[in-house]
């Protein structure tokens, strides 16, 4: 009989103990799996989110985090200059501000307003009505709103609303300006409870009474096919050394070095603890089990089983326990990650499309590798016990007792 089959029968002989061992490993393994998903989940998800917008380079006026620094002045002229570079397919200035919207007789509702002159790529998905385009003369400027804002205003495409824009922190509030809702859109960076909208930068400037009319918080750049974001960044740095372009990867790397480190640290700490816990669990289970079976093991040694064979039996038992627990840990871990993700996504300002736990094949491989190492390490002591077992003395003790 092969070692694996023999180990399986040994485990089946004690179903309660084996089931508890597997369940314990499954619980520990599920936590380990989740920590592996968490370790890079936010980074992977954030990169996907940035890439999903369709622009692969952001240009700011300083090295500050996007939207954290001073605005880029003369943004239209800069966008025109940059769009003429061979490595760049599209350059779009974006301005972000806070605003209040109200319909007749309702209280003002705060929302984030994006000013953007979208041409080809649009960082939103239209779900109702029509998209932003050129506004007809003598009509209120067009506005796309997200579903939450539309519902809060009880407005639908075609309705006219009053919007008061907070143009600058040091400016008194200006009177409301009429906007016409032309559609409803989903914005990828919206938090779950965030109300938002987008209008053209020109209409935002009008609402601000011309204040900071051509400023932009950043420029979104799409690199031309065949060049890539790195070439676009290099071209921008050569052409405008005063600007600070960054590829999506660079932005993710910056965020990884600051904002995301907490979850990486937590993940590393909890992964280590869960592995240690799993190691202890298997070691104790195997050691106690071996201690209870010393006479049996001595007997099979006396029947001709080699040291290597009985050690292999213990290793196979450990591998079977960890293997079954590890496999069971995957669905448990996925279910647990959904719960934990929902908890963490309640954090204020987190885009609803962002996830803390993201599945990657790399995480699965690492999970399997870590559990395998744990199984082997946990089996070392009980293997040493059975390998060095004195056959005659053990059998004699068994008979005498």
């Amino acid at each position, binding site marked *: 009989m092969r070692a694996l089959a023999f180990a399986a029968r040994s485990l089946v002989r004690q179903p309660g103990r084996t089931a508890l061992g597997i369940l314990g490993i499954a619980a520990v393994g*599920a*936590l380990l799996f989740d920590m592996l998903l968490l370790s890079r989940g936010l980074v992977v998800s954030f990169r996907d989110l940035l890439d999903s917008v369709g622009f692969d380079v952001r240009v700011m*006026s300083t090295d500050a985090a996007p939207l954290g620094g001073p605005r880029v002045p003369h943004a239209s002229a800069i966008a025109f200059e940059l769009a003429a570079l061979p490595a760049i397919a599209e350059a779009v200035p974006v301005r972000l501000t806070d605003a209040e919207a109200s319909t007749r007789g309702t209280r003002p509702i705060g929302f984030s307003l994006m000013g953007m002159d979208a041409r080809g790529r649009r960082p939103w998905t239209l779900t109702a009505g029509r998209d932003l385009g050129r506004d007809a003369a003598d009509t209120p400027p067009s506005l796309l709103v997200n579903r939450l804002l539309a519902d809060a205003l009880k407005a639908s495409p075609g309705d006219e609303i009053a919007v008061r824009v907070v143009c600058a922190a040091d400016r008194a509030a200006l009177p409301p300006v009429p906007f016409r809702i032309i559609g409803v859109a989903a914005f990828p960076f919206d938090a779950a409870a965030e109300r938002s909208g987008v209008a053209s930068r020109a209409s935002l400037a009008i609402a601000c009474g011309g204040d900071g009319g051509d400023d932009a918080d950043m420029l979104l750049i799409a690199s031309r096919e065949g060049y890539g974001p790195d070439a676009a960044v290099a071209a921008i740095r050569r052409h405008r050394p005063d600007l600070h372009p960054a590829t999506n990867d660079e932005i993710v790397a910056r965020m990884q070095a600051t904002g995301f480190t907490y979850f990486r640290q937590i993940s590393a700490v909890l992964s280590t603890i869960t592995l240690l816990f799993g190691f202890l669990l298997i070691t104790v*289970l195997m050691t106690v089990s071996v201690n*209870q079976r010393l006479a049996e093991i001595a007997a099979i040694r006396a029947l001709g089983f080699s040291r290597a064979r009985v050690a292999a039996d213990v290793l196979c038992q450990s591998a079977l326990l960890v293997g079954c627990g590890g496999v069971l840990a995957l669905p448990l871990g996925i279910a647990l990650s959904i719960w934990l993700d929902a908890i963490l996504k309640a*954090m204020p300002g987190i885009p609803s499309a962002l996830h803390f736990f993201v599945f990657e094949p790399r995480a699965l491989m690492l999970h399997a590798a870590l559990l395998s190492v744990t199984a082997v390490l946990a089996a070392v002591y009980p293997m040493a016990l059975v390998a060095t077992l004195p056959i005659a003395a053990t059998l004699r003790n068994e008979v005498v007792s």
Partner: protein
Amino acid sequence: MRDTWRLALSSAIAAVLCAGVSSFAPPATRRDGVPAMLVSRQLRESQKLSIGDVVSLSSEPSGAHPRQFRIAGEYEPIPDPMRLGAVRHEVRLHLPDLIEMTANPADPLAAESVDALNVALPTPADAASWARETAARSPGLVLRSTANDDRAGPFIVLERFHLAIAIVTVIASSIFLLALMLMLVDERRETVGILRLLGVRRRRILLHVLAEGLVIAAAGAALGVVLSVAFEGGINRFFQWRYDTALVFVRITPAIALRSIVIAVPLGVLATLASSWTLLRREMFSLTRR
């Protein structure tokens, strides 16, 4: 000029979030009448500034139109969970100095505008009603009670996250404990059988097991609390060093220690009872049979 550097400055009292090129003035060129400012510990350490140094600040990205300030002191920024991991390069200026540096000269209102006014009420409980009345008198003002400060939001979420992790850990530990106790009890099968043969009642044996489980669980829980208290300082020091913050990450309070004991001890006793019960239910001869 000793050095030139570019700083991202953020001020708690105004929306000047970034400043441009600044430069040191050598001590010999210090003049009276230079306005004073405070620098955050992080900024002072990273730029090797000293109290009494005169530095130039600009609110423009290009560093144009700088103004000189004398460093009067250093402060520890208020720990802010929303800015965990952010480099706290900050300065604090007197409000008139800040307005003079940042206000648009073409805008007469700029010198009279601030981002926010902090108001301390004689009776903090009246905050909500005072906010309502003031908002009604001054349309356009946004009044928010600090009791509803959403900066604690991330920590509340993290607390929930840690609680969830703790629940999973407790479940895994309980399974581990039960498996271990089953094996330990199984080792005592013969002893229990002999006791039963000697006439010791099941109830008596169960009480004995219960007392033993209670002692083991209480000792384990106490050891856990001692270990967590021992690790508390180290964990805090590590994360405070890692994030360069004064935030306290782990605090073992008596309530938390008590909660741990209240959860751990009954779990330990239950595991002991559950594992022992399977043994005590058996016929006494089956216990002694090999």
